[in-house]
């Protein structure tokens, strides 16, 4: 087993966000994830401060680390200067680097995010682009979005966008040289290698689960991880 605690401690967010926890619970008290999932940010800090690698490994392979919404409300309140939300980020990074994320239902979802947000960042230079927000995958966007989507160019132009245009402005086409630069940034800083790892470990998992995994968002595995919720995430309300 890799030296997990020390690996985590290499992450600047752990050095910044892990002090001595006194288990007071101010973080769990106002954590939105704790309200709806079987989750307590307090436990995360408590487990990390044990430095016990077997507990940390279990955490990295669990759904637990994927419930947080990173609102960072916990950071405001901690009387000891801990930052559970930052620790979650470090745990998620490590879980992906080691391939542990595919061991949990919520962790496996990283592939779906990589294939949408990740792809769009490199393709459009922004995390989202309207033509990609399919009303079918986002029914809650309502009839208004359906209408916008159908008339995307007309609506965006009416609202003052420079839709796919050159020069500055809303939803402009990002110049190719700029896209090249951000690709290079992703390459030298480990962004691309993170993406590759997500793909590689997911592929292994899909095979293990007997599912087909292509490269888009339409194959069985991606559809499965994108839509299926086992419902085992809120202990209090089960059965």
């Amino acid at each position: 087993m890799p030296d997990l605690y020390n690996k985590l401690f290499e992450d600047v967010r752990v050095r910044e966000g892990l002090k001595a926890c006194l288990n007071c619970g101010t973080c769990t008290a106002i954590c939105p994830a704790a309200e709806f999932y079987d989750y307590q940010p307090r436990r995360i800090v408590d487990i990390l401060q044990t430095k016990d690698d077997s507990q940390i490994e279990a955490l990295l392979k669990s759904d637990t680390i994927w419930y947080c919404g990173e609102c960072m409300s916990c950071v405001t309140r901690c009387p000891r200067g801990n930052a559970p939300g930052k620790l979650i980020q470090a745990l998620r990074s490590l879980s992906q680097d080691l391939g542990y994320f595919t061991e949990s239902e919520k962790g496996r979802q990283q592939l779906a995010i990589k294939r949408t947000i990740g792809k769009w960042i490199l393709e459009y230079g922004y995390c989202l682009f309207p033509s990609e927000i399919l009303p079918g995958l986002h029914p809650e966007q309502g009839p208004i979005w359906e209408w916008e989507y159908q008339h995307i160019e007309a609506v965006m132009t009416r609202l003052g966008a420079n839709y796919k245009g050159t020069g500055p402005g809303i939803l402009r086409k990002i110049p190719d040289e700029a896209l090249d630069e951000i690709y290079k940034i992703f390459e030298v800083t480990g962004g691309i290698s993170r993406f590759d790892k997500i793909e590689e470990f997911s592929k292994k998992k899909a095979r293990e689960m007997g599912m087909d995994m292509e490269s888009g968002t339409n194959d069985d595995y991606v559809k499965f991880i994108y839509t299926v919720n086992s419902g085992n995430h809120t202990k209090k309300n089960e059965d």
Partner: protein
Amino acid sequence: MKIEGKQRIWMDYQKEIADDHFFYVRSCVRQNFFPGSEKTFLRILQSELQKDIYENPSHTTCSGIGYHADIVPFETSMTMVARQFALMTEAGYENFTTSCITSFGLYSEVLETWHHFPETEQKTRDFLYKATGRTFKKPSNVSHASDIIFKFRKKISEKGKYRLINRQTGQPLRVVEHIGCHYSKMFPSKGVGGAEYPYVLTGMIDEWGGEVIDYPERRHCCGFGFRQYFVQANRGFSISCSKKKFESMEPYKPDMILTNCPGCPMFLDRWQYAISEMEGKTYGDNGYGIPVLTYEELAGLVLGYDPWDLGLQVHQVPIEPLLEKIGIPYDPEMKFRNISGQDIGRPESPSFLKFYPEKV
């Protein structure tokens, strides 16, 4: 409630906001869902306030959504941020301003990290140089666009045509203010008014004649949660959070919700629709929902801009009842037209949430 207590806290969190010469970076979410808001922001700064604000066409996302959905490593995001700073430096600017709250939080986090761990700044500089050949200076001032509107709220009020007053009753409009989590929860001193009682939106509402509602779930996140919304299987979390807020604010009978984050207004708007479809429940007056506005849209209304130039037509919760209350004229026929005034069809009505005002 003793307002003096809050005023004392506001005095403790006075934030430095630059006065002019801004380097502006756009928001992924705001461009998609509230493009009119970004347009309005620039219009107010340039035409009303005669400020110099510059946008470089080569700037990109800061990667914040990817960072907080954890597919983008911190090193990558720091270098993406550094690239934006490089574009600012090359253009001769020092005051950095962002349209997005997640970005604002990320820029603040990166600068704090560099301050406390200088080796990370050096590493980022090396990465950026290797990838792009660029170098940069750190900004002397970082503000969110809502900070700037806050700073000039009095000027906007002076030039304004409308006030947040119900013209029928003469009473101030009751406004819920919702602050994006990453505005000041991580670094209270970086937000106007701090983290517990942020003043950035309250200051605008006060100045423009409205009354702020302090309701129990005021500080609760809208529920976006990055991965919690982007993956359909997790969206139950996201909608449940927003519902909690609606239930908490409902007894106070708000006339509108004002937001400073790009994501929150989209969710608070769309989840009202989704809740109505899933449970038949609507909030607000007569089944029309509670209108949700961005601060740019509200500033635009105060200044008397045409509601359809502001982009109020792309809200799922209809905005007309609010316009009626304030007494702002609008042309219902023009709501869904294209730029040349031609008909391009209309959105369907939701099942429960009223969408088209009855008299139309």
